């Protein structure tokens, strides 16, 4: 379980995260929802140790954030993290060299599934193809958790469908997924837990299925109530 406990962070005098607390369970898809600047990406970066916190604690399966965690948690940011001069195959080789959890068979399957050309240079990828490549690098690690920052951002409808398809496969099923997205329409039927953020604080965290059955509200209905009053 990923535990985010009373996390605070300031940036240029502004409180970016103001006592954020929530959990993301293994085997579930948890979605961080919020308008721009709500602190969604900052939370993911903080979990991955990519930005320091003022106070608070992040624990993954009861252990603090550290180098060993990177074999357990994969992160798919909303942009490329492989040098643009590298070919896709070289980027994959880099991952294979450094991560013990790298699953080469799965990487090859995903290359075929996403129709990516391994000889292509990373810098030549379109936004959609770059998103698929980032997803490939994240999903090809045998990790317990995977964090995704805006996996659908700026991607065409067909690429979005292909990426959404991944969420209903066994590539995701057994893992804990924590993602941020604006494209809630595409994801609503897949999400287990929703965490609504506003001004760096958690406004509401709920079980989507429970909300549907007990109150008859969709995630979008709840978002409207929270964000538009």
């Amino acid at each position, binding site marked *: 379980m990923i535990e985010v406990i009373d996390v605070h962070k300031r940036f240029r005098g502004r409180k970016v995260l103001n006592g954020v607390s929530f959990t993301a369970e293994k085997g579930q898809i948890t979605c961080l929802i919020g308008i721009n600047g709500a602190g969604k990406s900052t939370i993911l970066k903080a979990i991955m140790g990519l930005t320091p916190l003022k106070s608070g604690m992040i624990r993954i399966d009861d252990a603090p954030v550290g180098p060993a965690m990177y074999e357990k948690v994969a992160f798919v940011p909303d942009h490329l*993290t492989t040098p643009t001069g590298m070919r896709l195959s070289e980027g994959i080789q880099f991952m294979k060299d450094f991560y013990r959890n790298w699953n080469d068979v799965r990487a090859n399957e995903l290359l075929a599934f996403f129709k990516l050309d391994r000889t292509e240079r990373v*810098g030549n990828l379109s936004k959609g193809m770059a998103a698929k490549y980032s997803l490939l690098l994240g999903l090809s690690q045998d990790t317990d958790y995977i964090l995704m920052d805006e996996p659908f951002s700026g991607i065409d409808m067909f690429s979005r469908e292909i990426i959404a398809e991944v969420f209903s496969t066994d590539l995701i099923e057994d893992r804990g997924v924590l993602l941020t997205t604006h494209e809630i329409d595409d994801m609503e039927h897949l999400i287990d837990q929703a965490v609504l953020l506003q001004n760096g604080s958690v406004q509401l965290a709920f079980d989507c299925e429970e909300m549907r059955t007990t109150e008859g509200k969709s995630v979008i209905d709840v978002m409207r109530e929270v964000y538009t009053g």
Partner: protein
Amino acid sequence: MNRYLKLVNMEIHRFRYILASLMVVTLLSQCGSLIWTIQRVVSAKEKGLTQAEVGFAIPKFLSFPWAIVNTKVWFILPILLSITVLVLYSMIIWYRDWFGRSTFIYRLLMLPSARWVLYVSKLTAILTFVFSMIAFQLVLLVGENMLFKTIVPAGMRTDSTFVEASTIIPVLDTLLPKQFEQFIYSYGLGIIGVIVIFTAVLLERSYRRLGILYAIGYSAACVGVILSPFILGLDRSNSYWYPSEIYTMELAACLLISVISVCLGFWLLRKKITV
């Protein structure tokens, strides 16, 4: 160890074209100017022209050090260019991972190994580039000496030692010291300089706007500490301190700055760095 070597290999791989370009520029500039200088004089001597007729000095016998001195600017320029590029790259080696379409620093900081490995691998890569250029210059000097002997007829030249040639230009003399002790001083100070640059960059990357001030302040403090015996006038002949004591102070200052810079750099990477 394995991951460290792989990171070093990757850093060298990423700089290979620039390093090769610097070598080519050095080769063309030094050899080109050497050939032009020697041929001009040999041709004048063969035609029996005097200094007044050609407008430049014609020595009785040509030597390799003489040829180097007379091609001075074109000999030194590529060396200075290489030094400038390597100093700038000591900063760019970090910044290139943050900027551009791909932010590779995300991946590097998420590697399942201690982050100080990243620091050490970048430092190793810079040192490898420096010593590669030095080795290339050494080989080039040998080649240029052979070129000199090929172009200048035996009757027009005097033989000289390799050391004479490398001593004649101050930059070469500093880069290729004759004593091991001098080598340690020159390159030790160079390594400290790179470490201070690394720490300054990491301060800026950790604290951003405020970090620029920290980086400038830290770099100035380091220079101040290293130069402190001279600033305080301890090296003057009427000083209270013996030269050996001043030497020990200087050594301690260098060690102190190295240790503090490395520890601070590691700590920033572990605790404060932000992407």
